[in-house]
C-alpha cells in the first residue's frame, strides 16, 4: 500500500499544481524525484510533526491541497491539537496518510503503534476515514479525495486482502445469509479475508467497508432487517469498539445485539514479534474471529 501511495502521489504532483506533499522525514526517499521536479510542493520539514500539520493548514488556507504523511502515532497522536485547530477549526482540509496501522510495526514496540488513531479522529467533526484493504483501493481513494477540499484520513496497512473491492460510501456485501440467518458480520478494510474464512460455516451475512466515516448506517440497517436476527459482529483492525456507536445509531430503531472485535482497550500489549502474533494476541486472527463469532451468534 505504501508503494501505491507513493506512486499515486508522485503522479498527481506532476498532474495537479494544487497538490503539495508535506513530510517529516518518514518516507522522503520515495519522493526524491518529485522533490527535485516540484521543490515548492514537496516540503520535508524535518522531524517536526506539529509544524507539519500547521504548514498543511497554511497551504490549504492559500487554496492548495496538502497531502500529509507519517507513521500513525506521529501523524495523528502527537499533533492532535494541530489537527483539531489548524485544519478543522480553520475550516480547511487536507489528506492525512498514515503507515504503521495498529501493530504493523510490531517489532518496534508501543512507540510506533497507534491503534487509537481512528477513535481519536472520530472525536472531530467532518473527517472521512478510509481503511483500505488492498493497494488498488489506496489509489482509488486518493484519486477521489485529491480534487476535493475536505478532511480525509487514509490508513495504510501492511495487511491486504486478496482482491480489491469498490471504493465508496456504501457497504459491500460479500455473502448473504438466509432469512433465518444469525445476523450480520461487518469487516473493516484488511480484516475481510480472515473474517470470510472465520465465518465460512455460519449462516450470516458478511459485509465489508473500507470507508468507516461517514459510516453507512442505512446500509447496515437494511442488512440487519433482512437477516434472521439483528445481531452485528464488528471486526475492526484498530481499537475495539471504535465504530460501536455507529452500529448503535444504525440499529437504534430495532432490538439488537452487537459485539466488537479489535485491538484491546484495557491493556497495553507489551510484546514485540510480528504483526501476525499481535493479531493473535488481540483475537484478530482467523481462529480468534471464528471463536468470537460462534460465541456471539450462539452456535
Amino acid at each position: 500500500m505504501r508503494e501505491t501511495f507513493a506512486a499515486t502521489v508522485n503522479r498527481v504532483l506532476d498532474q495537479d499544481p494544487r497538490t503539495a506533499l508535506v513530510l517529516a522525514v518518514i518516507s522522503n526517499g520515495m519522493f526524491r524525484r518529485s522533490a527535485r521536479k516540484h521543490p515548492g510542493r514537496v516540503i520535508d520539514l524535518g522531524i517536526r510533526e506539529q509544524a507539519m500539520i500547521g504548514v498543511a493548514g497554511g497551504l490549504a488556507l492559500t487554496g492548495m491541497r496538502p497531502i500529509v504523511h507519517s507513521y500513525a502515532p506521529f501523524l495523528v497522536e502527537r499533533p492532535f491539537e494541530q489537527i483539531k485547530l489548524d485544519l478543522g477549526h480553520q475550516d480547511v482540509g487536507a489528506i492525512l496518510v498514515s503507515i504503521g496501522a495498529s501493530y504493523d510495526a510490531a517489532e518496534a514496540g508501543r512507540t510506533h503503534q497507534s491503534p487509537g488513531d481512528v477513535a481519536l479522529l472520530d472525536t472531530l467533526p467532518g473527517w472521512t476515514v478510509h481503511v483500505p484493504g488492498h493497494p488498488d483501493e489506496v489509489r482509488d481513494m486518493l484519486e477521489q479525495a485529491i480534487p476535493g477540499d475536505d478532511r480525509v484520513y487514509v490508513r495504510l496497512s501492511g495487511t491486504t486482502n486478496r482482491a480489491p473491492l469498490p471504493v465508496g460510501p456504501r457497504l459491500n456485501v460479500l455473502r448473504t445469509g438466509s432469512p433465518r440467518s444469525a445476523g450480520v458480520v461487518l469487516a473493516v478494510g484488511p480484516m475481510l479475508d480472515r473474517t470470510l474464512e472465520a465465518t465460512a460455516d455460519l449462516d450470516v451475512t458478511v459485509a465489508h467497508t473500507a470507508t468507516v466515516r461517514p459510516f453507512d448506517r442505512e446500509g447496515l440497517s437494511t442488512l440487519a432487517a433482512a437477516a434472521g436476527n439483528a445481531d452485528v459482529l464488528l471486526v475492526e483492525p484498530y481499537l475495539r469498539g471504535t465504530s460501536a456507536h455507529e452500529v448503535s445509531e444504525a440499529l437504534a430503531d430495532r432490538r439488537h445485539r452487537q459485539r466488537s472485535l479489535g485491538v484491546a482497550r484495557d491493556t497495553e500489549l507489551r510484546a514485540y514479534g510480528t504483526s501476525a502474533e499481535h493479531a493473535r494476541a488481540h483475537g484478530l486472527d482467523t481462529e480468534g474471529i471464528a471463536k468470537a463469532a460462534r460465541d456471539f451468534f450462539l452456535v
Partner: protein
Amino acid sequence: MTTTATFSRYADLPALIGLMGGDEKHDGASLSTTDVLWVLYDRVLDVTPATAEDPARDRFLLSKGHGPTSYYAVLAAKGFLGVPTLRGWAAFDSPLGHHPDRVLAPGVEIGSGSLGHGLPLALGSALGLRAQGIRKADGTEPRVVVLVGDGELDEGSNHEAIAAAGRLGADNLTAVVVDNASSEHGWPGGIGRRFEVEGWTLREVNGRDHAALEDAFTPARDGRPLVVVARIRNGN
C-alpha cells in the same frame, strides 16, 4: 460624515476598545499589541475590505489570539468590521469572541487562541503563496505577517516553524513578536537571538514607535524570513 469615518483614526481606538467590556484578564495582552496592529493595517499590509478575498492580498495572522480587543478595534477602524458589531462581543450570536474565529469574523485570517499555532500556519501560507506563484497586480509577491507573543514562544511548535522557515528561505514571511516580558522563564540573550541563529533577519524596535515599526516591517527580500521584535514595557 459616515460612521466609518468617525471611527477610522488611531485616536479612535480607545473608544472602539471601550465598546467591548468584560475581559479584564486579557486587557494587558490586548493593549500591548495596539500600536503594532495599527501600524500594520494603516501603513504596511496591502489588504482592505475590498480585497479581503483576493488570493494576492497580504495576510495578517494573529497567533496570540487572547485579548483580541485591539485587533477587533483596528479591523473596525479599517472597515472590515461594523462598529456596532463590537458592542455585542462575546455574546452567543456575536461573531466576535474572546478568541477570534476566522469563519465568523470578517477580515480575520485564522481562528486562534490556543498558543503556538499561528507561526506554522503562517509558514504554510507563505509556502503556499510561493508554490502557486501568486503575484499582486504590480508584480510583487504578497507577504504573510504573523503576530506572536513572547510568552507564546514557550510553545515548541513555534520553534519547529522558526527553524523550518529559516532553512526553507521563506522571505515572504514576517513574524512580529510583541515582547512584554511575559514568558515564564524568560529568553536569555533575547528573543530575537532564537530567530537569528535559525537564519532570520532580526529587527528590534520600540513597540510604541510607529515610524520605527513601519521601517522595521520593510521587507528585506534577502532570502531570509524577517522577525520584528517589538518591545513593550509597563508604562511605555
